[in-house]
């Protein structure tokens, strides 16, 4: 299509469904969602009140899908949404919302506000208002196969390096194995030790797995942007690869939004159920632990805490596995005051960290995370999302804190019982 | 069940408090009578007193030396309470139902006084009867 204001409005009309209608009907303008929002609480701008971000969508709902709204529109009591208005909401829908979904936990009438934000983004993108960084990332992913635009060769080189380091063979495009592993660009580029770590864990557990040369990217800018068509195209590549290789289980890596895209949104955007199951890597590790196939030794005695990534924990339902694993390999783990479903966002999700202009905002809202970490007096923060990890590292550095950030898989790998010791 | 079996008394603490207030008012009024010659009358029907409270009030005031009964379209009973200057006046209709009840603070209740018009009428009648008697004597 050619994105346009009309396309945007039509898309908004298209995405409004029964839940959204019930949400807008039920909103009492109580403002409690604001108390859940890290942007509102840290910056104090009333416009950051979550439900306020959806005002254009609310009006479209009211005018188009309620009897009263139709009447109000008829007699001119209700003004149509304008292009300028949508434009003004880019800031509120994309730049100052990480879609962390904490607001949805606060709403007394149970509105899933971030569900609506996701739908609103759909309309904004159709109106051509998606931030350019997200568009660029989507283009790169579609064209090159990875969010950051590196080619498969780059990944292959890293895989070979990991093989050399660990002495374990790592499959690419190997059919009929137990798992197809997806990776996120951030991991490949910044935390590539993950590949070797996983190879060791799986080797020990006796799990067979492979990477795919056609579908290795788990990240999905289509989801952030709210471009379901683009999101679907990326999902379809993964589905095609899994089907071709006849693999029944796909692993989503340590990346929150990737998990949300492939695990929960995927089948819905492509319009059919998967012929395979999807797991977060931490879920896989926890299952191996439960089955006794994951053997570790010793424990991390640093005082550490865990940061639950929004999309995996609060929105994705992965809350217990990470704690089981932490209890296995650490002996000084403390929970944050607000945790799991009510954890505070790191401030980088929902595509916000990739939008350059949001940097000042991100710096401000990180103070919430800083306080959360500081009051625990820990030396290490463990997480299971590459974006969170990046954002935490940046924030910690900005604030001159002496805290280390680790990925959970890596922490587990560090304590893996080596063959010799066994 | 017959309607007059339904109990009529309700224990109402407000009513008792009202009766106590009446006692205080009477003291004030009695002082006014002594010091300023001001008589006063309290209409008991205008006060929300339940029968129990009224009985209590009656008991507190007691009975004094004077008691009078009137026969004037039904009876009326007037008596001085144990407190001189405080009178209990109750009017009944020909069917002996109380139609009005007052506590009066005065030297003597108006209703006991002979009424000027009645006296004038009596005088007239008396003189007439004397005249008639005298005329009779003459005859």
């Amino acid at each position, binding site marked *: 299509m050619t994105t346009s204001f009309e396309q945007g409005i039509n898309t908004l009309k298209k995405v409004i*469904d029964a839940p959204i209608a*019930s949400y807008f009907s039920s909103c009492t303008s109580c403002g409690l969602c604001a108390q859940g929002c890290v942007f509102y609480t840290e910056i104090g701008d009333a416009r950051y009140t979550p439900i306020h971000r959806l005002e254009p969508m609310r009006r479209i709902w009211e005018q188009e899908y309620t009897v009263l709204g139709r009447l109000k529109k008829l007699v001119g009591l209700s003004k149509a949404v304008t292009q300028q208005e949508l434009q003004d909401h880019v800031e509120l829908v994309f730049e100052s919302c990480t879609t962390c979904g904490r607001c949805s936990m*606060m709403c007394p009438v149970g509105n899933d506000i971030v*569900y609506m934000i996701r739908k609103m983004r759909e309309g904004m993108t159709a109106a051509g208002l998606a931030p350019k960084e997200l568009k660029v990332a989507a283009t790169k992913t579609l064209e090159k196969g990875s969010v950051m635009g590196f080619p498969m060769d780059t990944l292959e080189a890293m895989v070979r390096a990991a093989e050399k380091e660990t002495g374990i063979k790592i499959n690419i495009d190997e059919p009929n194995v137990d798992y197809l592993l997806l990776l996120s660009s951030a991991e490949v580029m910044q935390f590539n030790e993950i590949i070797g770590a996983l190879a060791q864990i799986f080797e020990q557990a006796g799990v067979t797995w492979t990477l795919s040369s056609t579908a290795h990217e788990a990240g999905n800018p289509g989801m952030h942007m709210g471009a379901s068509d683009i999101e679907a195209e990326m999902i379809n590549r993964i589905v095609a690869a899994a089907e071709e290789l006849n693999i029944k289980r796909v692993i989503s890596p340590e990346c929150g939004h990737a998990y949300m895209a492939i695990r929960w949104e*995927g089948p819905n955007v492509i319009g059919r*159920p998967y012929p395979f199951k999807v797991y977060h890597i931490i879920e896989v590790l926890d299952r191996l632990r439960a089955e006794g196939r994951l053997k570790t030794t010793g424990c991390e005695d640093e005082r550490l805490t865990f940061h639950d990534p929004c999309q995996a924990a609060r929105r994705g339902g992965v809350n217990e596995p990470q704690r089981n694993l932490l209890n296995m390999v650490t002996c000084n783990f403390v929970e944050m005051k607000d945790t799991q479903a009510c954890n505070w966002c790191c401030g980088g999700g929902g595509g916000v960290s990739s939008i350059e202009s949001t940097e000042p905002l991100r710096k401000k809202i990180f103070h919430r995370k800083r306080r959360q970490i500081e009051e625990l007096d820990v030396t290490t923060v463990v997480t299971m999302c590459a974006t969170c990890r990046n954002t935490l590292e940046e924030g910690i550095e900005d604030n001159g804190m002496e805290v280390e950030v680790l990925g959970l898989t890596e922490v587990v790998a560090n304590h893996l019982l080596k063959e010799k010791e066994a | 069940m017959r309607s007059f079996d339904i109990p009529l008394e309700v224990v109402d603490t407000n009513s008792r408090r009202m009766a106590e207030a009446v006692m205080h008012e009477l003291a004030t009024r009695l002082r006014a009578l002594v010091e300023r010659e001001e008589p006063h009358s309290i209409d008991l029907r205008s006060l929300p007193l339940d029968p129990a409270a009224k009985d209590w009030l009656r008991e507190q005031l007691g009975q004094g030396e004077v008691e009078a009964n009137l026969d004037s379209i039904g009876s009326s009973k007037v008596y001085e309470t144990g407190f001189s200057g405080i009178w209990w006046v109750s009017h009944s209709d020909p069917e002996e139902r109380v139609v009005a009840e007052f506590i009066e603070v005065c030297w003597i209740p108006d209703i006991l006084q002979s009424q000027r018009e009645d006296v004038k009428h009596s005088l007239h009648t008396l003189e007439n009867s004397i005249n008639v008697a005298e005329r009779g004597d003459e005859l």
Partner: protein
Amino acid sequence: MNEIELLNWARGPGLTYATIFMVFGLTLRVIEILAMGRDKELAEVRASGVANGWRMILKRSIPEPRNWKYITAAYIWHIGLLIVVFFFIPHTQLFRDVFGWWFGGVPSFIIDFFTVLSIAALLYTLVQRFTDPARRILSRMSDYLAWLVTFLPFVTGYMAFHRLGTDYTLMLALHILSVELLMVALPISKLSHAVTFFMARYYTGSSFGRRGIQA
């Protein structure tokens, strides 16, 4: 029209019209919402969403202590409203008359207590609507009107019960009329949340449930 005629109208045709409007309006709204439909969940679910949908309906009624500053007043008057509306003995008569059965009432002094508490809490929520930035930016004229039509029945009811202000008959008529205003406002304002919140919570709860989120 004099007081008693006004009262007769309020108790008679007024109440009937208001009831018809409210039932019609709310039913229409519920159908309107339900008919918008939602796409079938195609992802493999962790659990059926149904149980968690129902659980959410109850669970979101439990106050979130961290927000006490913002919710205490609202909880107080919501609870007060439920008690006063459904358990004041004269009200129970109305419901018994309409439904054929109703709960017993509670003594008037308890109703009185909750009414005063609710009035105070409602006033405080109005203050909050003016002072809390989030609430203020969200507030449209309809929010203030909704506050008013919720507030009026409490005040008129209190005044009628205590024989305050004008003649009781007029006050009672005004009280009933204010409730009828509330009934009319229910389907055409945000007050419809009194019914649609079940749906909102259910939709969210079921989608959370499918993903294995307990909250």
